[in-house]
């Protein structure tokens, strides 16, 4: 008798929500979906006083988290500040892994080699996954992190899922009345499209 499989794994994506990162945002959704996992993000959480608790709840509901610290530079809007959300949520994930009984594994991505040693030296001894700020780099590094025997997606298959997302993005944006993919509704719908594509492309 075949054992019923566990529910699909969920991955908390801790990534910057800015225009320059849009391609990598889609690449992360495509790549995570290609492995048959469900992407989750703080985009799903409405802005409110209880936001921090909900972020903790979201991290707790995921088996894995991926933290992209590739955009740690100062932003252009005055007063110019670095982005603290991503390192902060990485800290929450590390604390969750250390204190809770549930299984949680976290991974750090960077676009530049050796930079994390300077920007976040507390992580010395942790090897970040360097994607070079390229979508192929994201696919390559996801392939270095995860292994799905019998259904391991290739970089080319992840690329095809990404192309499907790009093709459908304008329709999803139009339907949601949004100009940006960084909204809860658009994110959720892109994940469903990516999952459809993954189920057909990764065989």
């Amino acid at each position, binding site marked *: 008798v075949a054992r019923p*499989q*566990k*529910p*699909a*794994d*969920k991955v908390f994506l801790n990534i910057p929500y800015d225009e320059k990162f849009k391609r990598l945002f889609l690449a992360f959704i495509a790549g995570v*979906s290609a*492995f*048959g*996992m*469900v992407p*989750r993000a703080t985009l*799903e959480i409405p802005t409110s006083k209880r936001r921090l608790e909900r972020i903790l709840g979201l991290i707790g509901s995921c*088996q*894995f988290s991926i933290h992209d610290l590739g955009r740690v530079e100062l932003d252009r809007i005055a007063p110019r500040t670095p982005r603290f959300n991503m390192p902060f949520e990485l800290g929450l994930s590390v604390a969750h892994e250390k204190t809770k009984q549930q299984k949680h*594994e976290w991974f750090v991505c960077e676009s530049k080699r050796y930079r994390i040693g300077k920007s976040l030296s507390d992580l010395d001894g942790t090897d970040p996954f360097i994607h070079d700020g390229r979508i192929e780099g994201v696919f390559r590094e996801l392939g*270095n*992190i*995860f*292994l*799905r*025997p019998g*259904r391991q997606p290739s970089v080319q298959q992840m690329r*095809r899922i990404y192309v*499907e997302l790009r*093709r*459908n993005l304008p*329709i*999803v944006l139009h339907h949601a009345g949004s100009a940006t993919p960084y909204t809860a509704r658009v994110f*959720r*719908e892109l*994940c*469903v*499209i*990516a*999952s*459809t*594509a*993954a*189920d*057909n*492309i*990764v065989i």
Partner: protein
Amino acid sequence: MKVLLEGRFSSAEETADVLGVSSSRARELVSLARSNSPYLARVNGKRKTSSKKRTPSASRKRRARGKTAKAR
């Protein structure tokens, strides 16, 4: 060391359920994805392929030339 995934491969329905997308909207998105793509298009639930092998008709079989073609 790579992480071995033990959970099942998520279907579009399961993803929609986890993310709180309504089932009717999920169906729309699945058909949108399939209709928009040469990779994912389906007819009557079966994957549409351009290289479908066709069985030759009886008259075409009679007119077939060569040993290999006649043997089919």
